[in-house]
């Protein structure tokens, strides 16, 4: 299990894939103030939500490289022959994927918040929300990656599968920026995230098995 997680981290690090979500996230944070204009109160009000959209899309970026290359190379078959359950493989991939983009995104939120002139308390809530929400995003990405592996031209299909399930994370994540309802939003965000994390290894494991026959 540890070997599998380490392999995921190594793949993310050597391929430069780990950088991609990070760069995307910062790119959105840089462009957003240009589009909205230098209106500090407006930026502070909308910035949290924009960061959440950026975080969600950044986490979904590697959907085509999480499962499919390993399936095509026979990696998943070799693991199965060794008696390692597909669910364990999926869990290792989930942990590896989260480690490669969740904590970096939380770090990147600091410069991003500065670019958007977010006040400190909102930044704190965004960080808390990212901590609770990014595992859910990772779980969702993994599930969709497993469901679409082995199919061709999966870009549009992956988006269609993902977006409805990502909406709760986005609503409650962005809701955390609202000072009035942030406590309730955090609980609901954590609940939605937990549900996705709990289901993902089983859904992805079953999808990996189904893709074989």
């Amino acid at each position, binding site marked *: 299990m540890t*070997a599998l997680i380490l392999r995921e981290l190594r793949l993310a690090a050597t391929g430069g894939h780990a950088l991609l979500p990070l760069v995307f996230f910062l790119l959105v944070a840089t462009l957003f103030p240009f589009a909205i204009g230098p209106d500090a109160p407006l930026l502070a009000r909308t910035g949290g939500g924009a960061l959440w959209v950026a975080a969600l899309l950044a986490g979904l970026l590697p959907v085509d490289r999480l499962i499919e290359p390993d399936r095509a190379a*026979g*990696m998943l*078959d070799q693991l199965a*022959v060794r008696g390692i359950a597909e669910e364990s493989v999926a869990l290792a991939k989930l942990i590896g994927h989260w480690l490669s983009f969740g904590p970096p995104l939380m770090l990147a939120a600091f410069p991003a918040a500065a670019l958007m002139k977010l006040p400190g308390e909102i930044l704190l809530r965004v960080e808390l929300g990212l901590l609770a929400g990014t595992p859910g995003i990772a779980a969702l990405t993994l599930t969709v990656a497993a469901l679409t592996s082995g199919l061709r031209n999966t870009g549009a299909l992956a988006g269609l599968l993902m977006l409805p399930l990502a909406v709760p994370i986005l609503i409650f994540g962005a809701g955390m920026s609202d000072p009035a309802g942030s406590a309730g939003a955090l609980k609901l965000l954590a609940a939605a995230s937990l549900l996705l994390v709990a289901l993902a290894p089983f859904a992805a494991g079953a999808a990996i098995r189904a893709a074989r026959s």
Partner: protein
Amino acid sequence: MSALLRFVSVTCVRGGRILFGGLDFTLEAGEAALVTGPNGAGKSSLIRMAAGLLPIAAGRLERDGATALADEGLALDMKLTLRRALAFWGGLDGGDPAPAMGAMGLSRLADVPVAMLSTGQRKRAALARVIASGAPLWLLDEPVNGLDSDGQARLEAAMSAHRAGGGAIIAASHQPLALPRAKPVTLS
């Protein structure tokens, strides 16, 4: 000694079509089976069934002990050197891949990235993983595809050493493969 692998009237269905049915054979320690048949007869499916990767439509399959599979999937990380890529599997199998790399004539290539290897060298690497696994049952799907005569000789030597050590082998091949006293499994 109990059988390492036993097919009891196994039927294989792919895409709603029966590829073969009522297949019976047993492999005990030191034995080998050579699966032959035309393209699409189900040779690879038989190997994947034996590996537990394909469901069995009817019949029963008994396995005893670990298996090692070499099929068309390379399953090595392209960016790693051959030594490190094989060491990943060595870590899971609990064996040292270095002697197996030597047996397949890969020692000189240990520090070359997998992506730079030729087809035949990749095939040798996949076979080296099987040799290093220490599993008693080897499942080889077209093991000589892409191998030169030296590679084939090394594979045949490794196979006879494996059988002498109490292992069993199923090989599916449409090319001649020296597997003495192998049970013929012919699919049509």
